[in-house]
C-alpha cells in the first residue's frame, strides 16, 4: 500500500514532460504535459482516438515514447521494461478485459503479487518454511483484495476459473488484480464500460474508496460523464494527442473547446 508521508504533496507523483508518441506519421500524443498529485483522482477524457489509451500504454511501457519524458516520483520511467514499471508502483487495467482466463480468480490475484515476492523453484521443491510463509501471505493478501468487492469474488468463486465470471465481475477482478500488485498509482482504462447503471454507480463509489481506504493515486479514462463528475478531483481533456483543457469537472464541461471537440463546431458563429 502507498506511503503517504514519504514525500511532500506539492511534488507530483506522476509527471509527463513534452511527452510525444508517434505511430509513423501519426502523432498519437504530442508534447503532452500532465501532472498528477499524490492521492488525487484524475480523469482523462476525450473523443475516440484522442490518445487516452496511448497515454496509459506509454506510461506502462507497452508503446515506445518518441520524445519527452515520464517521471514517476521524480525518476524517469523511460527505457524500463513493463514489469519494472509495475514493481516501481504503477498498475493498470485494460480497456478490453484481459484476465488470465484459465486460472482461478484467486490465482489471478496471487500471480499479480509476483514482483513483491521472491521464493524460487528451490523453495517450492524443498517446501521450506519461508516458502510456506510467503504462500500464506500471498494468499491472505489476495483474499483481502478480493473481499474489497464484497461477496462477489470470494467464497466458492475464488476457486472458479476467471472465464466463468460475469462481465461486471471480470471488470472487478481486473481492478483487484491491479490492486494486488501493491501499486502507488493505478491506471484504470474505462472501468465501467459495458456495466449497467447500478453496477457503474457502485464502482464509482469504489474508485473513491480505493483512494480513501487504500491510499492509491488514480488516473482513470472514462467516457461515462456521470462517473467522471462523481469521482474526479481534476479532469484532463485530450484531443488529437494534445491537452485542450484541464480543471475541475464544471470548469471543463463548460469549456467551449471541449464542447467543440465532442460535438463539433457550431454552425452559427457567435
Amino acid at each position: 500500500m502507498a506511503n503517504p508521508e514519504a514525500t511532500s504533496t506539492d511534488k507530483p507523483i506522476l509527471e509527463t514532460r513534452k511527452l510525444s508518441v508517434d505511430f509513423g506519421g501519426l502523432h498519437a500524443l504530442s508534447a503532452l504535459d500532465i501532472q498528477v498529485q499524490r492521492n488525487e483522482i484524475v480523469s482523462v477524457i476525450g473523443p475516440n482516438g484522442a490518445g487516452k489509451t496511448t497515454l496509459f500504454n506509454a506510461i506502462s511501457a507497452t508503446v515506445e515514447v518518441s520524445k519527452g519524458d515520464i517521471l514517476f516520483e521524480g525518476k524517469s520511467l523511460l527505457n524500463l521494461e513493463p514489469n519494472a514499471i509495475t514493481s516501481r508502483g504503477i498498475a493498470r487495467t485494460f480497456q478490453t478485459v484481459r484476465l488470465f482466463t484459465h486460472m482461478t480468480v484467486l490465482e489471478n490475484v496471487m500471480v499479480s503479487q509476483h514482483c513483491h515476492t521472491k521464493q524460487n523453484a528451490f523453495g517450492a521443491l524443498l517446501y521450506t518454511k519461508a516458502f510456506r510463509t510467503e504462500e500464506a501471505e500471498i494468499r491472505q493478501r489476495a483474499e483481502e483484495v478480493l473481499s474489497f468487492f464484497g461477496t462477489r469474488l470470494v467464497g466458492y468463486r475464488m476457486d472458479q476459473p476467471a472465464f466463468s465470471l460475469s462481465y461486471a465481475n471480470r471488470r472487478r477482478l481486473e481492478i483487484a488484480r491491479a490492486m494486488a500488485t501493491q501499486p502507488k498509482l493505478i491506471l484504470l482504462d474505462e472501468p465501467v464500460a459495458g456495466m449497467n447503471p447500478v453496477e457503474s454507480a457502485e464502482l464509482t463509489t469504489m474508485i473513491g474508496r480505493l483512494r480513501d481506504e487504500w491510499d492509491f493515486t488514480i488516473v482513470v479514462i472514462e467516457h461515462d460523464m456521470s462517473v467522471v463528475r462523481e469521482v474526479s478531483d481534476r479532469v484532463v481533456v485530450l484531443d488529437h494527442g494534445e491537452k485542450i483543457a484541464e480543471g475541475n469537472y464544471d470548469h471543463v464541461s463548460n469549456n467551449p473547446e471541449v464542447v467543440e471537440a465532442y460535438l463539433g463546431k457550431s454552425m452559427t458563429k457567435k
Partner: protein
Amino acid sequence: MTTIPPRPTFTQDWLRIARMGGIAAVGQTFIALSNMPVRLDERLLIKPILSMGYLILIVLPFAVGYRYGHQIKREGMPTFTPSMYEVLGGALSGALAGGGLSLLAVLLRHFDLRDPLVNWSPILLNLLTFGNATWFAVIIWIVIGTGTGAAGGLLRLLGPRAYRTAISVAITVASAAVLESLIVDIAKGLGLENLTDRLYASRGGIEWLSAIVLAVASGTLGVLGRGRFRQAKTQLSQLEGTARTQANAALIALTLAALIVLPLFAGKLTNELLANVGIFVLLALGLNIVVGLAGILDLGYVAFFAVGTYTAAVLTAATSPRISPEMPWLLALIFVVVITGLVGLFIGAPVIRMRGDYLAIVTLGFGEIIRLLFLSDWLSGWFNGAQGLVQIPPANIFGLTEIGGTEPRRVFYLVLAFCALAIYVSWRLERSRLGRAWMAVREDETVAEAMGINTVNIKLMAFVVGAMLGSFSGAIVAVKVGSVFPSSFLIVVSMVILVVVIFGGMGNIVGVIAGAAVLIGVLGGPRQPGLLAEFSEFKLLIYGALLIWMMLARPEGLIPSMRRSRELHQHEITQDAWLKN
C-alpha cells in the same frame, strides 16, 4: 429429455446414408491400400475366424452403422425412440462401406495400378476374395458390411444396462486378444501358464471356444457387478476436503504399490515395455512444463534428450574418444542435469524473445541443429559422428545393484524413481509462485508483463526446468541401450513426445501419464515396440489419425486438467447457488 415414437422404418435419410457410407467406403479403400490388412492378417485374434487384418476392415462399417443412429440432443427438443429405422439405416450405410471393398476387388482383378499404388497386389486381392472368385468378394463384402453396420445400429436399441454390458464384453474379448503377449508374459510370472495355454492357440489368437467362454464370463460379471464401479466413482468424486485428500493419497499409494509389485511377476517383455513407457512419461512431463504450463510450443524438445544421453555416455563410457572420465553413473547424472540445463539456457536465450508460431519454428530448427552437431565431422572427435558412442557401462547404484539394458526390471525401477521425482517437481512447481507466473505467461504474455512478471526470465526458467527433466530420461536411456547414435534423435521423437502431451491432456500430470501409457505402451514409441508391435509400420499413420480425431472430439485431451473440466460443472454450481437463495 422427452422421447417421441420411432420414425417409420422405410423413411430413411438417404442422403445421410449415402454420405456416411461413401466416406466409409473411401476410408476402407484407403485402409486396404495402406497394406495394413495384409500385414496384420498374420496376427490371429480369434482362431480361426478373425485376424487383425480383417478386424481393421470391419471397424469402419460398424462405426458408420452406429453413427447413423446418432441423434443430436438439443435442450428441450425431443428425440426419437430408437427402432428398426436405425438398424436398417446402419445396415445400408455399412453395405455401402463394404461395397467400397467390393469395388476395389473388381478393380484389383482387372487393372494393374501397381505403379503409383505400391500395395496394389495379388496378395491384397487374395485377402479380399478369401481365395475365391471376384464375384464372391463382391457379395461377401457387401454382406459383411451390411451385417456389421446392422450390428452397429442394433447397439442403439439396447437399453443403457445392456449397452454397457455389450461394450464391456467387447472390450474384454478385444483386450484379451490384442494384449495376448502381455497377458501370457504376466501369467508366466504368476505361474498360471495352464490358463493361458488353454485360452490362446499355440500360434497366437484366442481359441474361438475360449472366446465364447470369456464373453459369457465377462457378461455375467458385468450383470452381477452392475453399477458398482460407477457408484464407487461418483462417491469418490463427491468427497470433499480432507476425505478427498485421503482418498487421493490412498489411490496414489495403491498405484505405486501395484507398479512396484507388478514387475516382480512380469517377464522381460513386460518390463521392457513398462520401462519404455516410463521413459516417455519422463520426457512428456518435462515437455508438459514447457508446453502445458508455460505455453511455449517447443518442437525441438528432443535436443535436450540428446544432450542428456550424450553427456551421460561421454562421462561414463571408457570408449568415449576425447575425454573419458569413466564416472559412476550417479555422479555423472549431476553433470548431465547441469549441462543440459545450461544448454537449455543457451538455446532458450535467443529463442525465448519470440512468440507463438515463430518460436515454434525456431525450436524446431534448434532440435535439428543439436542432432546434426552430434553427427558432424567437426565434433566427431568428441562424439564419433554417425558411429556413435558404444559400450556404455551399466549404472551402479550405491554399490547395491547394477542397472543395465539386460535387466529391464531394474531399468524400470530406476525409471519409476525418476518419474516419481518428475511428478513431484511438476506438482510442486505448479502450485508455486513460479508455476502461477508460467500460467500467466501462457494465458496472456503482455498482461503478465504488465502485472510485474519478467516474462523473459520466467520463460527461460520453464525451458531450463523442462530441459533438466528431459535429461533424466537421456541418462537412463544411455545405460538402458548401452550405446547412443545421432539417428536416435530425429525430429519425429519431438513430435511423438508432443503428441503424448496433447493426447493425454496438456497441463495435467495424470493426463500426460495416461497419454504415454496409451500411445507408447500400446502403439509404441518412435523406435520402441509397443503391445501392438504389428502396427509399428503404421504407427505414424495411426498417431496422425488419433491426433486428428482427438482435436475434433476431445480437444482438451484424454484426461483434461482440472481447470478445463471445471468449466463443465460451472452451470450446475451456479444453478445450485441460485436455487439456494
